[in-house]
């Protein structure tokens, strides 16, 4: 299991290579990326993420343990980047490989939803007009 907080750009291919194994028949990769428009339509210059790194890694391990308990054949990676990110860059990658697609999709969906709810990571949106705002995840609602 690859479970990391990183400062450098995320290389999705290398994560997929680390997760994929001969017993896997499918791999699902979810990437959260920096969008150019905020929910209110304002132009976004970039995002800044920070984390309680030790607690965030522990939360990733907990999520991976839960995946392993219910779907033991899934191979999972969770990698979240912190620091300043530009529009279009990958902020988080969740990659799940499994013998069959149903488990790969289910594990990836569970892991990203759980991360947004439980991992101590914070996101600041930086707008082109100079304003900056710390955003909260909306937990318990249908993901958008």
């Amino acid at each position: 299991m690859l479970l990391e907080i990183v400062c450098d750009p995320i290389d999705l291919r290398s994560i997929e290579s680390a997760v994929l194994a001969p017993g896997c028949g499918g791999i699902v990769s979810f990437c959260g990326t920096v969008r150019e428009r905020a929910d209110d339509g304002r132009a976004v210059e970039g995002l800044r993420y920070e984390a309680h790194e030790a607690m965030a890694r522990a939360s990733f391990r907990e999520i991976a343990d839960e995946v392993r308990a219910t779907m033991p054949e899934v191979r999972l990676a969770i990698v979240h980047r912190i620091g300043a990110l530009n529009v279009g860059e990958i902020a988080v990658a969740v990659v799940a490989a499994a013998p069959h697609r149903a488990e790969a999709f289910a594990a990836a969906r569970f892991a990203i939803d759980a991360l947004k709810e439980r991992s101590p990571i914070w996101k600041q949106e930086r707008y082109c007009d100079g304003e900056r705002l710390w955003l909260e995840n909306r937990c318990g609602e249908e993901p958008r």
Partner: protein
Amino acid sequence: MPVVRLVAFARLRELLGEPRAIALPEGAKVGDLWETLVREEPRVTALARGLRFARNEALCDAETPLREGDEISLLPPFGGG
């Protein structure tokens, strides 16, 4: 007088500064630390909603007693992903 290390994140870090040591009266709890910070920087009051605390990297509550050398983290609502 237990001395603890205070670590705040996101908007709370901007208001309270980078990690630092802070001394509290004997018998103080996590909630007393928060009250001390509210007196020091009243603007944090608006950030109490959804705030969680951690003591030495484990979630705790306001009633948790402080011990010498503890690291107390202030965790605003999360925004990762």
